[in-house]
């Protein structure tokens, strides 16, 4: 077990007797349900790398046709493929987790309006998500435009 922040849940006025320091939740960060939360946090690293990759790809546009072709060709490298699969999994994971938690975060009313029931919100989210994926896929595959 590890210590939590030494002042976690400490009162504003110091306690009247000596206390033992607060401990972190024993299963944090990788035990039980915390694992999903921790992985969720670590997906940030994947998006950071993905961001660099996009920047690098755009950068090569300025270095001529050969550089661009080399960059595109490098995407067939197994390491890149593995990274892309990982990115895909993490996007799906984050999406599903976020969507699951999103409906209940809606206040019971926003001004006079009431948000739709949770299943409807969830349906809307998935529709938009899948719709957008199909749309981009179609654009990238050259199906439209």
């Amino acid at each position, binding site marked *: 077990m590890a210590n939590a*922040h030494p002042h976690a849940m400490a009162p504003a006025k110091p*306690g009247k007797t000596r206390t033992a320091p607060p401990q972190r939740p024993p299963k944090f960060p990788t035990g039980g349900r915390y694992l999903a939360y921790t992985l969720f946090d670590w997906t940030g690293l994947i998006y950071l790398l993905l961001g660099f990759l996009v920047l690098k790809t755009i950068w090569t546009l300025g270095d001529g046709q050969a550089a661009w072709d080399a960059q595109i060709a490098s995407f067939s490298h197994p390491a890149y493929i593995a990274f892309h699969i990982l990115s895909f999994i993490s996007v799906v994971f984050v999406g599903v987790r976020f969507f699951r938690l999103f409906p209940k*975060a809606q206040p019971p009313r926003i001004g006079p309006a009431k948000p739709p029931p949770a299943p409807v919100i969830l349906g809307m989210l998935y529709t938009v998500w899948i719709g957008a994926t199909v749309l981009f896929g179609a654009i990238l595959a050259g199906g439209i435009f």
Partner: protein
Amino acid sequence: MAEMLIKKFVVTRFDPDQDDVPRTETYEVPCHPDWKVLDGLNHIKDEIDPTLAHRWSCRMAVCGSCGMNVNGEPTLTCKKAVRDLPDTIEVTPLSNFPVVRDLVVELEGFMDKLKSVKPWIIRAKEKAVEEGPTRQSPEELEEFKQFSMCINCMLCYAACPVVANEPEFIGPAAIALGHRYSIDSRDEGAAERNEIFRGEGTVFSCSYANECSEVCPKNVDPAAAVNQAKFNAVIDWATGLVLPRGGKE
């Protein structure tokens, strides 16, 4: 008489008068199969070691006194049956809290945090009793009722990864209770509380781990409350930019 279950209770002990750091002590407890973890602790206290310190009272999961970590999980010990646990039952004080003694944790920090969200009805003008009860539709009641079910048992604080790292964080239960009043149709204090909720260490510290709602023994769903409060605090801030504040009470 039903067959007894022999359980090994591994209990954290800490006496600031004698111990530098917490230690553990192990007790063999013959448990009636219907017992909860709390019954085992009371057996230890009454029959084996009267120096054990733990809080409890109602033994029906409503007073909120007996929260502890049981095998690593924040638990109301009066609600958790021993027969649902392995032969070794590890009981430690709630995580994220300073430990006063044995299984007793420091609650003053929570009391400060609770007070800071103004958990009471705020009205521009207090209603006179003579005016009779306010009308509130069953639907309006339903909007906040769930968040009013909090028994202050502190399990959510023990589970929250943000509480562990950020001492200023007001935390799940207190925010849920502040939010509960803000969305009560009888209350006029939402603007005041939104102001508080936009401050340091409040709703935006929450990273939505949702652990508070996982461990809540009363299905209050504090994570929902905290994230609804985020939403309201933002909406309130945005409308404040567009509309002059003076238009609202």
